[in-house]
């Protein structure tokens, strides 16, 4: 029985019962010993009977009234079940909507990850370290189930949506996100989704994982800030491991997260120079010495941010001056990460803040 039929039947039944509630006092009125004399009495009798309570205080005395009473009794078998069923369905439907994320995410400044596969799984695990809220979108319900089982939903908001259904995607509050990472496995689907999203969200900041390197420029032309080809990254590391294995192994260590948090590896991170920080106004050469000698970390680049543009200076010369809102990129042992945020820079790593 489909939903439309069930709804129509329910409405019909309610109409009939309502009609009988109206009719009953008219039939009973004036009869000897009658105690259902107006609609209030009739409604009370109907509720008591339909809910199977049966106080017995009100009852029909006329033959027609008794027929109506029998109808209420028989109906009680179905009405209560129907009502309980409807309530149960509403609760289940509500819980299902919440599980699928269709009650909507209301936060702001979060990161959105579209696509659920091996790569995006790894990306999400790494982004969890940033303590940013994440909205993770998949077009497969079983993926959403997996996310609920795997992640603490305080930090990860799973959303079931088709990648081109903007109405459902809107539950992820994409407009208020800080960055949207698109990692759908098929490049064609990724490109189409990107183009649609870019039309709806022209100011959004996108990062895309593309399977084929030759589409990188296409994505960039479509307005993607950063497009990464998995194959290109991996093939370059492989070639490096053959030709310069130790250098390549070092890069691989820098590029591979340490999800177990053993602290044994090295990492590459960037930190913002806040206004009035001791480094603000200092020569890069002096800051370099301080960080190496006093903190055992090695700066390798500087980023000067002005308005909407930024300049990445690789291996800056010593006489470059650091300014507030610059970012410094460093290589360090992972075990020092916590200390850097609290004792050296006073801000968490990254550029999202």
């Amino acid at each position, binding site marked *: 029985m489909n939903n439309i039929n069930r709804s129509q039947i329910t409405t019909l039944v309610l109409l009939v019962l309502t009609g009988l509630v109206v009719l009953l006092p008219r039939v009973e009125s004036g009869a000897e010993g009658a105690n259902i004399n107006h609609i209030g009495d009739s409604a009370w009798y109907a509720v008591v009977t339909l809910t199977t309570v049966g106080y017995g205080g009100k009852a029909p005395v006329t033959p027609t009234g008794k027929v109506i009473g029998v109808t209420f009794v028989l109906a009680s078998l179905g009405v209560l079940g129907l009502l309980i069923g409807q309530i149960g369905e509403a609760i289940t439907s509500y819980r299902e909507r919440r599980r699928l994320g269709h009650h909507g995410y209301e936060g702001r400044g979060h*990161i959105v990850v579209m696509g659920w596969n*091996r*790569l995006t799984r*790894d*990306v999400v695990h*790494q*982004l969890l370290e940033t303590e*940013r809220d994440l909205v993770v979108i998949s077009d497969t319900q079983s993926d959403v189930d997996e996310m609920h089982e795997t992640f603490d939903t305080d930090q990860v908001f799973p959303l079931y949506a088709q990648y081109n259904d903007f109405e459902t995607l809107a539950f992820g509050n994409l407009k208020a996100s800080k*960055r949207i*990472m698109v990692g759908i496995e098929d490049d064609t689907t990724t490109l189409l989704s990107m183009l649609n999203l870019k039309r709806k969200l022209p100011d959004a900041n996108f*990062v895309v*994982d593309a399977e084929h*390197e030759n589409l990188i420029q296409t994505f960039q032309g479509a307005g993607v*800030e*950063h497009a*990464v080809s*998995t*194959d*290109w*990254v*991996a*093939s*370059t*590391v*492989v070639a*490096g*491991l*053959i*030709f*310069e*294995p*130790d*250098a*390549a*192994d*070092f*890069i691989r260590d820098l*590029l*591979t*997260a340490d999800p177990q948090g053993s602290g044994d590896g*090295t990492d*590459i*991170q*960037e930190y913002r120079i806040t206004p009035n920080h001791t480094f603000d106004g200092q020569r890069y050469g002096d800051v370099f010495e301080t960080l190496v000698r006093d903190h*055992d970390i*090695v700066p*390798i*680049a500087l980023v000067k941010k002005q308005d909407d543009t*930024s300049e*990445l200076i*690789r*291996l800056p010369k010593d006489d470059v001056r650091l300014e507030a809102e610059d970012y410094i*990129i460093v*290589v*360090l*042992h992972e075990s020092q990460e916590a200390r850097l945020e609290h004792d050296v820079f006073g801000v968490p*790593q*990254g*550029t*999202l803040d």
Partner: protein
Amino acid sequence: MIEQFDNHIVVIGWNDFSRKVIDQLVIVDNQVAVVTENPDATSEIEEYFGTDLVEAHFTHFNSFNGFEPVNIERCRKVFINLETDHRELQAVLELQAEYGHDLEIDVVIENEDLEETFRVAGTSYTVSPDSISSKVVASHVFEEDVGTLSTELLRATEANSDCEFQQYRLLEGHSHVGQTYGDLFWRLKREYNTILLGVSRPQPDGSRQLHRLPDHDLELQAGDYAIVITHGEHEEQIVNWFGIDEGITHAEKFDSV
């Protein structure tokens, strides 16, 4: 001729990924023997690369022996890139059984959970594309400049302004043999604006141990490799200073330590 290749790379398995790897190996003049079980691929490979550095050989992969025609016993490294992790593991085990455990094998795997399995099986390096790419992608999301820089560091230097990871061997008699890591660190920084990030030290068993950001009082030895980040514009000066080209030396595999 492929059977005369020496100190070359043997690539087992031909697909788009193999092509990308070989593209980069050829840039730095490595000889590459490509072994494929697709007979039509051999001419495609040789036409695509169009250089004597790359030759292709057809054979069935029912078992992983019979690679003498590509002179596998004189190769520097074997790179395995087959359709499934299962087949690759089979290839690793059979190649080592046939050609000995000295054979250096790198492999690309789909399931990163199998990295340890392959390491135990005897591979030198196991690469999971998703594992590496996920970091680059994640960096672009929350540390976009790190993402940009990481991507650059992965490229071979094409223009002098690029930044590159390199490794240079400390030759016997070099001025910094017997000096400390800290001495070398500050010398490279001050004279060449080049950053020393680690040292790779040969071990008695032929392997190398990589010391990342070691203590500055680590004493350097002849045969150590200095891992540096440098600008392409300084490369010539760095090469002259170390007295050797970047990378592991071509004779490295067959020399004693």
